[in-house]
C-alpha cells in the first residue's frame, strides 16, 4: 500500500473496505459509512484531543539538541500533567525517518532538559536509552500553557508539511490527553454524526490517551503500545449494555477503543464506568468480549496495528483483506483509507438479531 502524504482528514475520495463476519469483501466510499452500518449499531469513538507532544530543546548539561516525544502517562487525571514517559531523539526533526534519527546524549536521573518555556528533569531510564521518565517543573496550568505554546504534533516523515493541531484534532476532540491522534476518528464530521442519528445508529465515546505508534527502534517498537490510561463514561457503558441486550453490534472506531473496551471488560465484574490503565495486547489470542466490528485505518502487515486485526479475523481472511487493499490501491497511514472489519465469530445473539430483522451487513 502507498502512504497517504497529505494531512487531509476526510479526502473526498477516501475509501472503505468492508469485511463481514463471513469474510465477504466489499468496497465503499468512506463518506457512506453511516449507510454501511446497521440501524441498532452502537459506534464507540475515542474523543481524546491530541497533545502537541513533540518538544524540541536541549540537554542543559551538554547543550546537545534533542527532540522529546511524550509517549505515555499513568492517568488522565486533570492535574496529572507533570510526569510522562517520553522517547528522546538527538538533533533533527520529523523530516528524518525515525529509523534514521540520531540517539540523544546519555541521559541520567536528575539531568535537566530545556524545552522552550518548559523545564523537565529526567526521573530515570525506562529500560532503553531512548525511553525515559521525565517530570516537568511548574504548575499544571503553566505546563499546559508551555505545551500548548511550544509543542508540535508528533509526526513522521511520510507527511512532508509540518502539522498543526487542527490537522490532528478530530471533529469530536475533547480532553487533550492523546500523544498521537486517534486517527480512525478522522472519518467523523458533524454531517456523519447527524446521519448516524437519522439512521438509528447510536454514538458514544470514551477517552483514551493513544500513545506513539512508532519510535524508529525495533526493540522499543516491540514494547508498543505502552500502557494507556482511559476513561469510560457511565452513559457509554449504559449504551453498550443496552446495545448488547438487543443483540446489536458494538462498532469500535479505532484500535484504541478496542483496547480500552476489552481491557475494561476483562476486569473483575465486567465492563464498568471509570478510569483504567490499558496494559492488554490485542492479537490472535484475544477473545473479544465487547467489540463486534472495527473501523480502522489500513495498516501494513507486520505492524502492531495489523496484528491487532487477528483478534477479528483469521489468517486466511486477513491475507485476502491485505490482497484486496493492495490490489485496490488503498492508501495507508493516519490520513489514508479505512477498513470496517466485522469479527468472524460474531456473537450468536447478534447473528440471530440480524436474521430476525432481515438485515444485511453489506447493503448494496
Amino acid at each position, binding site marked *: 500500500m502507498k502512504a497517504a502524504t497529505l494531512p487531509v482528514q476526510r479526502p473526498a475520495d477516501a475509501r472503505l473496505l468492508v469485511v463481514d463476519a463471513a469474510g465477504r469483501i466489499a468496497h465503499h466510499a468512506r463518506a457512506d459509512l453511516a449507510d454501511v452500518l446497521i440501524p441498532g449499531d452502537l459506534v464507540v469513538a475515542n474523543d481524546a484531543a491530541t497533545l502537541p507532544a513533540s518538544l524540541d530543546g536541549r540537554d542543559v548539561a551538554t547543550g546537545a539538541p534533542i527532540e522529546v516525544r511524550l509517549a505515555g502517562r499513568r492517568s488522565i*487525571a*486533570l492535574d496529572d*500533567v507533570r510526569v510522562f514517559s517520553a522517547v528522546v531523539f538527538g538533533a533533527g526533526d520529523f523530516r528524518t525517518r525515525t529509523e534514521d534519527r540520531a540517539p540523544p546524549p546519555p541521559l541520567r536521573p536528575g539531568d535537566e532538559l530545556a524545552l522552550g518555556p518548559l523545564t523537565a528533569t529526567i526521573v530515570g531510564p525506562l529500560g532503553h536509552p531512548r525511553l525515559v521518565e521525565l517530570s516537568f517543573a511548574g504548575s499544571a496550568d503553566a505546563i499546559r500553557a508551555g*505545551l500548548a505554546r511550544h509543542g508540535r504534533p508528533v509526526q513522521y516523515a511520510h507527511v512532508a508539511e509540518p502539522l498543526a493541531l487542527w490537522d490532528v484534532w478530530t471533529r*469530536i476532540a*475533547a*480532553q487533550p490527553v492523546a500523544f498521537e491522534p486517534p486517527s480512525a476518528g478522522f472519518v467523523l464530521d458533524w454531517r456523519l454524526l447527524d446521519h448516524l442519528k437519522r439512521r438509528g445508529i447510536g454514538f*458514544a465515546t470514551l477517552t483514551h490517551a493513544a500513545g506513539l505508534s512508532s519510535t524508529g527502534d525495533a526493540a522499543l517498537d516491540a514494547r508498543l503500545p505502552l500502557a494507556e490510561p482511559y*476513561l469510560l463514561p457511565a452513559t*457509554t457503558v449504559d449504551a453498550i449494555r443496552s446495545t448488547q441486550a438487543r443483540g446489536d453490534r458494538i462498532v469500535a472506531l479505532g484500535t484504541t477503543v478496542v483496547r480500552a473496551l476489552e481491557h475494561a471488560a476483562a476486569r473483575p465484574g465486567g465492563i464498568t464506568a471509570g478510569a483504567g490503565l490499558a496494559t492488554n495486547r490485542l492479537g490472535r489470542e484475544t477473545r473479544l468480549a465487547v467489540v463486534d466490528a472495527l473501523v480502522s485505518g489500513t495498516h501494513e502487515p507486520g505492524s502492531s496495528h495489523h496484528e491487532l486485526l487477528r483478534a477479528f479475523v483469521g489468517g486466511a481472511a486477513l491475507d485476502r483483506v491485505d490482497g484486496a487493499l493492495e490490489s485496490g490501491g488503498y492508501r495507508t497511514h493516519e490520513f489514508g483509507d479505512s477498513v470496517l472489519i466485522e469479527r468472524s465469530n460474531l456473537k450468536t445473539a447478534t447473528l440471530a438479531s440480524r436474521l430476525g430483522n432481515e438485515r444485511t451487513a453489506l447493503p448494496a
Partner: protein
Amino acid sequence: MRPLRPYLRAIATISSNIMTHSNQASTPLRIAITGATSGLGMALAEAFAARGDAVAFVARDATRVRRVASAIAGSHGIVGDVARKTGIHAIALQISGALGGLDVLVNNASSLGPVPLALLADTECEDFELALATNLLGPFRLTKALLGSLAAAARAGDGAHRSLVVNVTSDAAVTPYPGWGAYGASKAALAQMSRIWHEELGRHGVAVIAVDPGDMDTPLHATAVPDGDPATLKRPRDAAREIVARIDRERQVRNAPSEPELLTSSKERAA
C-alpha cells in the same frame, strides 16, 4: 463565599469530573469566558467562581491575566488572542485541559473596530477586519475547537441539561447606529451565526444563544463613548448576574429552545 471549592475541583481528577458530573443546577459548572480581565467578562468570571463553578478565562495581556487569576481563587488564566487563528487550538487545549471538560463557553471578548469610532466610509479595512476577527471569526473558531468538549459534556450528562455557548452581542447588531458600522455588522453576523448553530447543534445537546447585556460601564464603552456619563450605565456586575441566571435557565432541556435574543431597545449612541 466558598473559596475552597474551585481549588478542590482543580485537584479532582478528570475521572471524577466526568463520572459524577450530574449537571444538576447546584452542581458546579465548567465554564470558559473570553475577554475576562475587565468589564463584563471579569464580572462573569467573578460571579461564577463565587458560587463554586470551575472557571477558565482567556485574555491577551499576560500581566492582567496573572492578576485576575490570583484575584479569583481557583480560576485558570489563559493568555491568548481569540482574533488569531493560529492560537485557537492552544487556547482550547488549555481550557478543556484545565477544567476537565466544558459545560459553558462565553464568547465575550470584543473589538470596537476603529478607535475612535468612525463612519463606515472612514473605516479602514484593517479595522473592520479586526472587528470581524475578534467578534465573529474568534467565536466561530473557538466554539468549533471546543465543540468536542461541549458535546462530550452533553453526552456524559444526565440528559436534563444542555451544554451552552453564549455569544455576547449588542443592540448595535440590530439598530444602525451611525459610527458603529464595523462593530454593529460583526455583532449582527455573530447573532445570526448563533441562530444557525443553535439549529444545527440542538440534536447534539449543545445550545447556542446570543445575549445583549445592555450598555455597561466598561472599558470598551468608555473607549467608544469617552464623554459618556458612567452613572447612566449598567454596572457589569448587574449584567453578569442576569446572564448567570439566563445561563442556568437555558441549560435546562425542559425549557423550550429559545431564539437568540433580539433586543430592540434603542439608545442614543455617540458617533
